[in-house]
């Protein structure tokens, strides 16, 4: 009985194994960090979990239901939602409409969806630009919109993909605040992040991968002191 479990996931592209036997479990209510250098397979992992790819082998369980191979929208309906590393705002719609479109996952009526959307927008701190077209947002706000939209679907588990990339330090701090707030509201979070500072600060547990395989898993401090991780990030034998 686990909240979320990925079991020995493998994904091949042609002959290349992008993800090769990764397993981990996530407990309800925690922030689970997923780290690894560029190209190590984190985003592929997200695509496998959220249904955009079908795993070559391996299984994914969410709230005791097997979800690998389901269509993304079905997985979303079960309460698992993702964001994209390269943000994908619905450009020619306003921020509010972006979020309303997502909020329909919770309610079929426009009035109700709008109420949920506005609440979520406030919750995520996008209120000041809710009438702007999504394409005219700054990168920080786009990332925020991505999270807001995901939140508006009423998820139990949210996958955040590189939410902090490209944010300046003050924006990063705001984002950390937001993620903590989301956790406080009872939503479980899996976060892929490159900026170690962020991962260190907010994760409860961290899982490190490289070349599509698990390096190590543990608390942030455990992981970051793991020589394999340091090597993966900075190049071999940095300490030398």
């Amino acid at each position, binding site marked *: 009985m686990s909240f979320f479990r990925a079991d020995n996931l493998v994904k091949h592209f042609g002959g290349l194994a992008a993800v090769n036997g990764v397993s981990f479990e996530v407990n309800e209510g925690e922030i689970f960090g997923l780290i690894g250098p560029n190209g190590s397979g984190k985003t592929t992992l997200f695509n496998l979990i959220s249904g955009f790819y079908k795993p070559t082998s391996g299984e994914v369980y969410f709230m005791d239901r097997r979800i690998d191979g389901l269509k993304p929208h079905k997985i979303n309906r079960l309460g698992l939602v993702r964001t994209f590393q390269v943000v994908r705002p619905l450009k020619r719609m306003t921020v509010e409409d972006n979020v309303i479109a997502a909020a329909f996952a919770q309610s079929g009526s426009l009035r109700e969806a709008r109420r949920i959307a506005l609440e979520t927008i406030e919750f995520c701190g996008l209120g000041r630009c809710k009438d702007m077209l999504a394409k005219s947002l700054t990168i920080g706000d786009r990332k925020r919109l991505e999270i807001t939209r995901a939140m508006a679907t009423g998820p139990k588990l949210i996958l955040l993909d590189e939410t902090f990339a490209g944010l300046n330090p003050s924006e990063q701090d705001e984002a950390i605040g937001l993620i903590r707030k989301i956790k406080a509201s009872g939503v479980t979070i899996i976060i892929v992040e490159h*900026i170690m500072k962020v991962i260190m600060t907010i994760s409860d547990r961290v899982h490190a991968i490289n070349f599509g395989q698990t390096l190590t898993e543990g608390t942030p401090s455990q992981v970051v002191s793991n020589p394999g991780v340091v090597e993966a990030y900075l190049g071999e034998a940095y300490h030398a």
Partner: protein
Amino acid sequence: MLKVDGVDVFYGDMQVLWEVSLTVGDAEIVALLGSNGAGKSTTIKTVSGLLKPQAGQIEFDGVRLDQIPANRIIHNGIAHVPEGRRLFTEMTVEENLIMGSLRPEAKRARTETMGWVYDLFPRLRERRKQPAGTLSGGEQQMAAIGRGLMAKPKLLLLDEPSLGLSPLLAMEIFRIVKVINDAGVAVLLVEQNVKRSLAICHRAYVLENGRMTLSGTGAELSANEKVKEAYLGI
């Protein structure tokens, strides 16, 4: 030789670089470090003309690069080996190399340069008739660098050459960079592998959130704890 001076770059109305300045001297290896999304690739793309700065200027051997179209940059002796290799996957290795030597100066020396590239990467010679898409990651990176060299550049822009390569292959790539540099080509290197980069470069810059925060020689920066912080957050 290359002088980037106070460059601001935007994606649409979104600013990503703030007053970035750097220089690369003759036959120098300059490393550009920073975490993901810090603006390294953007800087390089701005140099090679794919992005146009809204403020500041870029000069190379007295030519204002920011005022000429992207496809003319290579004619001034700058070759850009882009992130993710960006080979022409359906063309053979050899054709890819030829594509690197379109500018007249390079075209004249095509066979010669190609010989040199093949000597540099014997694996490519073996696979020269193979479509580039069928190469392994390391070989693709070699082909990409080789394609850049075919232009007989004075300055080579290398964007994440070791990305996704095994440590052994990455080491090989760094060795080659050194060899290339020894042949008199200046290199502007964007890398994640901080240690390796600092080991081979003459000078390095650190970018954080679109701004230059540190610069110095390789040795200076290796000793600087701030670099580690920028990457690992500790």
